[in-house]
């Protein structure tokens, strides 16, 4: 469950954090940094909040600097139930 969020001061760290977590077999997703949390985070990383200690330890070994750790589930996750008929299909 992607209910945690790492924010960063630079996308350099966000991109490397995502790769580090994935390489370790952990769930991770890069998203646009939620502006309701911080104006700093251009790119943020969603992760499983229960795994935060392990994730933070792992990121520290890779010299990835985290700005903040948040319990966070975007409100936009609710949108997935809506599928307007005219919507363009996509294969992601």
């Amino acid at each position, binding site marked *: 469950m992607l209910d945690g969020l790492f924010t960063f001061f630079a996308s350099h760290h966000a991109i490397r954090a995502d790769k580090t977590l994935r390489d370790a077999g952990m769930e991770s997703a890069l998203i646009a940094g939620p*502006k*309701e949390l911080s*104006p700093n985070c251009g790119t943020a990383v969603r992760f499983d909040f229960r795994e935060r200690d392990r994730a933070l330890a792992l990121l520290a070994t890779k010299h990835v600097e985290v700005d903040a750790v948040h319990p966070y589930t975007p409100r936009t996750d609710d949108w997935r139930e809506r599928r307007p008929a005219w919507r363009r299909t996509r294969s992601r």
Partner: protein
Amino acid sequence: MAGPIYFDQAATSWPKPDSVRRAVEEYFDGAGGNPGRSGHRMSIAAARLVEAARDALAELFAVPDPGRIAFTKNATEALNVAIYGLLSPGDHAVTTSSEHNSVMRPLRHLEAAGLALTVVPCRPDGTLDAEAVFEAIRPETRLITTVHGSNVTGALTPIERIAAEARRRGIPYLVDAAQTAGAIPIDLTALGIDLLAFTGHKALLGLTGTGGLVVAPGVDLPPLLRGGTGSRSDSEHQPDFMPDVYESGTLNVAGLAGLGAGVRHLLGVGINQVAAHEQTLVDRFRTGAAAIPMVRLFGPERPADRCGVVSFNVGSLSSSEVGTLLDRDFDILSRVGLHCAPGAHRTIGTFPGGTVRFGFGLTNTIGEVDAALRALAEIASWAATREPADA
């Protein structure tokens, strides 16, 4: 498969014309050398590509001598050359509240070292009163610098009026044309601007890593970097002539080959046609968005006051929430947040949450604008169900 609807042209243009891609290949296949250095045929071929890009830009900006255009790696570098070259502690500079950090951070850095800085506030719609700039001028003012088109609101600065007044008073005027070069006509011969900074990868349709500074004759501006130029190699002192004085180190030749092709593409279409197309898209978007409940538009109402950039928010959704939905569920790419211009957002009242920004370009269509309006109507109706009760 259709690509996404790309409304982030204000960040960088996409897709580039095929001729741009071919020009980059031409560098690798038919040129390949280091321009101005070695003198063999591959070096000369590379130099020809660089000069062709300079010629195309000179034609676009109506610069009689292409040698007045110096290439840099981006608009930021060009702006830094001008700002650090012209200003010293004790001087005074005038700028506006709509500036990008590429102007504001160098100025704030110099301010900390003793520069006196006046930041003229723009109106809540992002437009600038030229008279307010004139009132800020002091005897020790050594630079006036303004953005041409705001990267947040799209508001256009009255650069003609400011240029005329700056010239009358003998104060150098630097224009940041990052958003407007290649998007609307800029006639430097008619305008009489001392310094114009541009980026190659936005409306000029070139590659990232390219930009430049147009320096009018008579402007006394030392370079920011010094080094090898391929010229005056007998001397250990920097040449003082254009464009070499500002072009130390090997240029991004592949990128400039692409930039030249991008500008040629624009000249073929016609810059007036490009501007009219972007105006059509912005007008259609603004008219449609104004009719959607909960969508709040920012920027000037009058078409003559704006370029192809528009900012908005939807209800109490954050700009990143709207951007995420547009990207993930509608294939529409925007830029959210503060757009590296915190002062511009304070001016329009959207600091620190920022806005969703659409930047339109030559390749965008009315059909894409209409698709975005449908998407926003859908997002707005969803947002309405999640508004706080007291909102």
